[in-house]
């Protein structure tokens, strides 16, 4: 591989790189080996600790918790996309009494930690007499308010980065502003922002794990429950490993879809190139 950051290696550099490469590999093997060894020594790989997960009923429960995670993710994803579009349109409105509240809404909900939002719904509302708040509604409501606001910014950046000619052409053929927005600008903005939108969806999927703290019955919640079963040796690390594999797997599938879509987009000529600086990694 050639890079602008370093010269093509000569014979001396090549042997030095080879030595450094071997040293790096050794260090990594040492770190991973130490962790695995520690796991093995403290008995995390013993048959006894994994026995719990061989029961069909336990496996079923884990599958159900995956379902719970996915249903919270799917509901929140759809609703926050809808909310995001509405807020983006609101912010781009010419009427200040529409655009200002939308601006305040997005800024406010991007600044409040998601967990605090979920707690406000789950612990804060019921004492005030609001009925029917389940952990599911609290998780979804928190995710939608936060990610809807983030997606609104993404849509807005996408629409604003389109060439002016697009909307001008729309007005020139006599379309009203609403039609220009929905028929001309939004489809192009979505297309050019698709990678960012999908990485935000990965964020939603990851953040469903916060439901663990407001007692939503998802993967991590089950993992902790199984991990504290004393008669099976409290297999907290095996259940954490299972949860990690499930989460990383699901996120990688979503990320893989994002990459595939990006590749397709690049080949398609319809996409308007967006300046790289417009796409700011909004979430951490």
């Amino acid at each position: 591989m050639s890079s602008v950051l370093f010269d093509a290696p000569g014979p001396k550099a090549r042997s030095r790189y080879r030595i450094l490469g071997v040293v790096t590999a050794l260090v990594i093997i040492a770190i991973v080996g130490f962790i695995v060894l520690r796991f093995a020594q403290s008995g995390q790989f013993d048959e006894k600790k994994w026995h719990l997960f061989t029961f069909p009923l336990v496996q079923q429960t884990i599958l159900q918790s995956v379902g719970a995670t996915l249903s919270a993710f799917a509901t929140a994803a759809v609703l926050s996309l809808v909310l995001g579009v509405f807020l983006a349109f609101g912010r781009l409105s010419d009427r200040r009494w529409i655009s200002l509240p939308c601006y305040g809404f997005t800024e406010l909900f991007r600044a409040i930690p998601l967990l605090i939002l979920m707690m406000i719904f789950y612990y804060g509302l019921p004492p005030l007499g609001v009925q029917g708040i389940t952990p599911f509604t609290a998780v979804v409501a928190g995710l939608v308010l936060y990610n809807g606001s983030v997606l609104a910014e993404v849509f807005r950046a996408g629409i604003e980065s389109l060439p002016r000619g697009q909307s001008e052409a729309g007005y020139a053929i006599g379309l009203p502003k609403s039609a220009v927005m929905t028929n001309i600008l939004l489809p192009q903005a979505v297309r050019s922002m698709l990678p960012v939108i999908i990485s935000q969806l990965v964020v939603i999927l990851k953040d469903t794990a916060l439901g663990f703290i407001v007692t939503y019955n998802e993967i991590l919640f089950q993992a902790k429950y199984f991990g504290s079963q004393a008669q099976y040796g409290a297999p907290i690390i095996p259940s954490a490993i299972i949860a990690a594999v499930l989460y990383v797997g699901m996120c990688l599938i979503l990320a893989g879809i994002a990459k595939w879509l990006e590749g397709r987009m690049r080949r398609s000529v319809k996409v308007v190139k967006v300046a790289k600086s417009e796409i700011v990694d909004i979430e951490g």
Partner: protein
Amino acid sequence: MNTLLNNSDLFITGFRNTIILFIVAGIGSLILGTIVAALRVSPIPAMRAAATLYINVVRNTPLTLVLFFFALGYPKLGLVEIDFMTAAAVGLTLYTATYVAEAVRSGINTVPVGQAEAARAIGLPFAQTLTLVILPQAFRAVIPPMFSVFIALLKNTTVAAGFSVPEAGSIRANLSERGEPQMAGLLWVALIFVLLVFMLSYAQRKLEKKWKVVR
């Protein structure tokens, strides 16, 4: 207002711990993230592969799970004992470092090619090209995304409340033990976070103006 004033001890210890976590994890992830970003562009394939693997795995793991491992799993390994606060700081650092690394790497890509070529032309090796020429310019270019990462870190510290760290996210549980209205407490916490985030955004605009790269 009464909820805030009558329980100011809770709010003060809570937010003090939040800010300690934020600063420790912020500095830690800035250092670790920069190292990982440097590894990712290094001439040695093994280093590049290791950094890429780390970033891909940790970025696709929920923070809750990372903290879950450090708070509940780590003590079972029989290693050096650490308290929940340290565990949370380590977890947050490892998690945030991947985002810092991605931000720094995107900054390295924005530095014009001529800069690196000039550095190589005067005979600087890779380490010096990176530390003396590229990184100082890259950091200036990535102030907005870097601040987004740190704002996210500030908000993410609340997750530690789920793992026995007495910080801002756990103020609610303590309030409910004292029989105080939880909603009022939560709204105060939210308001303080909004103020803290706005302070960070203000610092971002200041720094951006101060360190603007004129090309």
